[in-house]
């Protein structure tokens, strides 16, 4: 958002979007809960729940955090962070041989 002078921002348009996003988020929240009540197979349940969460997260990031119209530098930064975040998520999967649970 920064960069554009504040006088040029069409606030009313923004506000309209915020309200729509709010509605979408609320609906998606209800859907996540409803889906969880279905007790799907774990794989599907996880995939679905995380997909919905990702959609919700993206909405927050894109509209509330104005990522949709952000500067290149911020994108570069976030791509970097995302990359390292992925490195981090390799972490549980490089732990082999983690199967024995009793000591003796």
């Amino acid at each position, binding site marked *: 958002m920064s960069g554009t002078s504040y006088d040029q921002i069409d606030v009313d348009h923004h506000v309209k979007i915020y309200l729509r996003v709010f509605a979408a988020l609320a609906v998606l929240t209800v859907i996540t809960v409803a889906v969880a009540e279905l007790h799907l197979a774990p794989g599907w349940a996880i995939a679905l729940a995380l997909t919905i969460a990702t959609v919700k997260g993206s909405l927050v990031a894109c509209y509330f955090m104005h990522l949709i119209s952000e500067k290149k530098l911020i994108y570069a930064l976030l791509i*970097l962070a995302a990359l*390292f975040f992925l*490195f981090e998520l390799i972490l549980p999967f*490089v*732990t*082999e041989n983690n199967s024995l*649970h*009793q*000591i*003796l």
Partner: protein
Amino acid sequence: MAESEHHDHDHHHEELGFWRKYVFSTDHKVIGIQYAVTGMLFLFFGFCLMMLMRWQLAFPGEPVPLLGKLFPRGLPGGVMLPEFYNELGAMHGTIMVFMGIVPLAVGGFGNFVLPLQIGAPDMAFPRLNMMSYQSFLIGGLIMFGSFFLPEGAAQSGWTSYPPLADIAPSGQTAWLIGMVFLITSSLLGAINFLVTTIQLRADGLSFFRLPFFCWAQFVTSFLLLLAFPPLEAAAFMQLMDRVAGTSFFLPSGLVVSGQALEVSGGGSPILWQHLFWFLAHPEVYVLILPAFGIVAEIIANNTRKPLWGYKSMVYSLIVLGFLSFVVWAHHMFLTGMGTTMSAFFQTTTMMISIPSVIILTALILSLWGGSIRFTTPMLFALGFLPMFGIGGLTGLPLGLTAPDIHLHDTYYVIGHFHYVVAPGTIFALFAGIYYWYPKVTGRHMSEFWGKVHFWPSFVLMNLIFFPMLIQGMAGMSRRMYDGGATYAHNEGVLYLNKVISFAAWGLALAQIPFILNLFLSLRKPKTASANPWRATTIEWAAPSPPGHGNFTRPVAAYRGPYEYSVPGESEDFTPQFEPAKAPVAAH
């Protein structure tokens, strides 16, 4: 923070009181000095701990002379207890890494030099800068204070592996809390450095005109920013394990001294190691990159020619930064890793050695065709090169799993990394101190005593650390309270323990000229000009020492950072901040 209305009457043009000026200052130069002095004090403290350890290693079980009365807890009757030895080891490592080198190299040099080199009036967030220092100080004091806990300081190694660390006495809790403060400090610092470098560069100072030192700080800050949080998460979890009785790192059914441990279990000790090394491998590059930066500046200045291969050095730096996040498990080869995983981490480890080779080669080749001045900073910078060479090269066998089976957790590892950090980074830091001292204080340090400092230090460092490689090859494990005397296979190398210890104490003596030089030079008259080394980078455009807001005139960059000995120029240096004499046609 008292709004001190204290007025100076001795005609200093200052409206800031003593507290605001020296203690709660937001001036990057003051904060840099605070960081550097605190860092040096901690280095000195870590050094003292090490000398105590070396007594025990050289003369296992014999009472330490003089000190017995002072530390009745750890040295009853002067004889060191094994617990106390472990405390010394863990705290030596922690203090040197997190409270010595990082604050000095990044907090000190970074804070003082970086804004000056990019022509900025200060850091982007001065108040955050102050908080960063204060957070460091609190963390440091907690760590220091933990020695006075009834059961002493942390004693599970600087790596704090659980379950040992989970069931260790309360010093470990202090260690964790201290770490959280230190991490917070580094995060705040890193954000500040990054924003400063991105936003406050002077006109014309494009990224590829940045001095190499700035690049090194820039990449270092990224490492700090992105590698520290996982350790923070791990520290929280270990704290929960210790305080709230969780079992993040404790598997079910532990039996400690014949007693079943009353915890829910289900955790994984390996998890800590992953999170720790995810930080700690990038962390070791945090220790070395600023050193590269300092050495590069000094080499360019003292050879009177540009750095050779500046661009490839910068690219190597960036690649190094990236790769440092995917090699962490080379510290964990012997934790039951399978072929695939170990092959992956071996390969990345070998890959990461290549950018280091490129940087080192470029630094060495920069000497070619130069006109080398053997000033004290240059001596330390030159000493750095082969020392880092030995340290880096000994990393190679450790990075290959097969040799690592034999070498893991032996003194070979100790030798490896001390070569990189002690005659490596510490030498670079000494070089930097001698180099920027005139800028910081307006005074010169004595060249003669500088050389008296360098030569013995150089010899003794090698006498300390080379024998460690031999001991390690013989199979001597690290963290041995009796220096490995229990084991028959160490017999042939035990005599080296004494050699090393005497060399270490000798090294202490060799620092006396430095300490005296550092402090006594402060009493000399301020004779340093703005640019005593006839250097090209922008920090030398500011007066020595720089005042409030740093520069007395607007600065901009007109060329690359190291335009030394430009053909056709009358002087052998063409500062970055001097406009071209005969203006070239505008583009």
